[in-house]
């Protein structure tokens, strides 16, 4: 029986090592050693099997500190992996149904900076002022994009003295700038589609009708940014679980190595 339990342990260790090779496989994409999808599938199933075999090896008992820690890490790794599989099964469908147009870019920040610049230039042309100019330039610089041209044609040609100027300027300062500062945050006003609609409708109702075209343009830019932000959040969630799973897996490998050495020598 002892040999059987030892056998469970050896097979479990080999499966864990094999499962860990997935990361290497993904970095060596040119290698023709089987489609990555097959590796992912094997990683998932054999990883789960490794947990079962490890539990059998431990006879479902915690044991010493090292083995208890190893077992706990293995369980956590498997659970985080399971969560990852669930996330990667559910979120793509949600994302596809909720985001009509996706951006192919990895980093959404340059898009946010561009959109902010577009809104900024419309507001500057209408209101004849450039609030938060320095902050926007710093944001653009941090995103690695050059400065946009300063002149933008506005449709309304709205005189700064007419009513509505102050409302738009205030809306820009209090609603739009906070949104662009932290576009991935869900706590700002414009992060919510329903509240965005209400806010823009209220703004539209409180300004001169000649300003409506410009406000609609700003609204369209904000809506698009909202979509990009939602997309970035989905992508972050789809990748984020790895921040837990990979370190746990690496720690498990280290402890597994220590456990094997300890078992051989002691």
């Amino acid at each position, binding site marked *: 029986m002892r040999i059987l339990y030892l056998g469970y342990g050896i097979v479990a260790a080999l499966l864990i090592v094999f499962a860990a090779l997935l990361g290497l496989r993904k970095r060596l*994409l*040119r290698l023709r050693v089987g489609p990555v999808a097959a*590796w*992912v599938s094997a990683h998932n199933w054999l990883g789960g099997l490794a947990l079962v075999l490890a539990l059998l090896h431990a006879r479902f008992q915690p044991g010493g500190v090292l083995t208890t820690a190893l077992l706990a890490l293995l369980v956590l790794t498997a659970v985080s992996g399971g969560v990852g599989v669930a996330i990667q099964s559910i*979120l*793509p469908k949600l*994302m596809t149904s909720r985001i009509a147009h*996706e951006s*192919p870019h990895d980093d959404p920040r340059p898009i946010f900076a561009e959109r902010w610049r577009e809104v900024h230039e419309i507001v500057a042309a209408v209101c004849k002022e450039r609030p938060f100019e320095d902050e926007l330039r710093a944001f653009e610089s941090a995103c690695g994009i050059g400065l946009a041209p300063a002149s933008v044609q506005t449709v309304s040609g709205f005189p700064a003295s007419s009513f509505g100027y102050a409302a738009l300027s205030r809306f820009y300062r209090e609603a739009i700038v906070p949104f662009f500062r932290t576009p991935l945050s869900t706590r700002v006003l414009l992060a919510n589609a329903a509240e965005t609609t209400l806010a823009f409708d209220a703004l539209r109702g409180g300004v001169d009708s000649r300003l409506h075209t410009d406000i609609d343009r700003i609204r369209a830019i904000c809506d698009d940014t909202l979509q990009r932000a939602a997309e970035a959040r989905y992508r972050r969630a*789809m990748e984020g679980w790895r921040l837990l799973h990979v370190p746990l897996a690496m720690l498990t490998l280290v402890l597994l190595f220590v456990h094997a050495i300890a078992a051989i020598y002691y």
Partner: protein
Amino acid sequence: MKAVRPEPEKLKLRPGDVELNVTQLKLTPLFANASDKTARRLASLRVKGAVVLRHYWAGDVVCRQGEPGWTAFYIMRDVDLRRVGLVPLGVDGHGSGPESVGVPSVSIDQLLLSDSQKNRVKAEVSIAPARTVRPPEQGSFMRRAASVFVRTRQRKRIVPVDASANVAMGEDGLAVGTLREGELFGEMSCFSHTPRSATIRATEDCYMIELMRNVLEDALENDAFRAALDQLYRKRVLETHIASMPLFEHAPAEVLDELRRRAELATFEPGATIYLEGEEADAMYFVRLGTVRLARGGRDGRIVAYRSRGEWIGATGMLSARPRRSTCLAHESRPSSNDPHARPTVAGRVELVRIGRRLFEDVCAMFPDLRKLAARLVEDRAAHSTEPHASLAVENHAGSLGLLQAEKLMLIDLDKCTRCDDCVRACADTHDGVSLLRRDGPRFGSYLIPGTCRQCLDPTCLLGCPVGSIHRGPAGQIVVEDWCIGCGLCAEQCPYDAIAIEPEPGRKAHVCDQCSSLGDGPPMCVYACGQNAALRVDGRSFFTDWARRR
């Protein structure tokens, strides 16, 4: 859109070649017995540099499969050579220099129709198959195991080539045919600038006239030459082509002979209507040359399919005695969508073999089983009908997205894709850091159609390349050679923005080559996808199944 680049202005002379003048041309079968009108046209035609008598030694390659081609070739007979003042090449392959020009009055029948089968074989046509069919004993274990139980019937496949030659794909994957004296080949490339469909190699020392499109067009205006070519076609390949249709596969020789004798040959200029949707289906057609377009909802309606050399059209309608379900047009390449005023790009005439209803009824009387076969064919067609395409059009813009046009359409199943971009990175890894795949494009249902080459059935990008650097590779993939000058014409003509032009320096077009350099197996983008979300599919079959499932 930039103007379409013309073909090379003149043919280059090589050692041993002879540039023919109008007088000599009139002595060749191309223009012998030409009408006064054709003769006048020929006299006013710019032939200098447009027609060359080339000397090929045994083993010389005349043209290679897949290469771009702008010219056609006529294989000279000994008698033709004497007409133009040359001594025919002897058995040792050495002829003497030019003689005095001979007597011009020679009958076209004597030149071509005496008995073409007795003419000497002068060249060999060979096709390199895109995928070699492996015998079961060389396959995987599963394949070998399956072969024990399942014996698939190997059907001899006729490969349509740009010549009056029978080229059949054997079980060993080799396809070779022969060309004889007095035959013309390369018409399709000459008219449509399509890549050469086969490799032609001289098997004996011989002379061939290489002619550019303007001269060929005038030669084909010569009714005598045209009739001779048609008769040659009937004699050499029509019977084989008819026999390649499942309906006539088991027909006895006399039926095939009757069809060969009475089938009509019809020519259509680009854009001409062959038949209209809703009209009586009184004939079926075999495409001998060129490409036809099938559209529903009128001439400018949704394109259902393209049919080209070697394919059949209009058979189901005639056999089921129902009106035509689509309009059939001789295809003309359309201008780039960027410029609606641009003129259409180069396209060639369409030649069809027409089998009318009366002829079909007559052969049915000779071979009664034909009716049963026809009924079964109609049933089979109905089961695999393209009707789901109609629902596709209703569902979305399948036609405008060109999904049914694609032979290897890249799709990303967004319900599975985790947006990790491993596909894009794998593509860049494989192509020296340049990704030929953008994970961006229109959607069709839950599928993203990324911006990458889809290997169109009708690759308009191939048309008009000034240096002939873009062509189809052996597996059908689009290949841009290193000598591309980066003019961007192919990119402008691609309706799907699948060709990228690398900016200065080293300006060059880049197009997805389906990772053909890596050998067999799926391209790297598909191979690297961990979620099975990246697919390469045949657009027509995939979306037909998709529509049926819905």
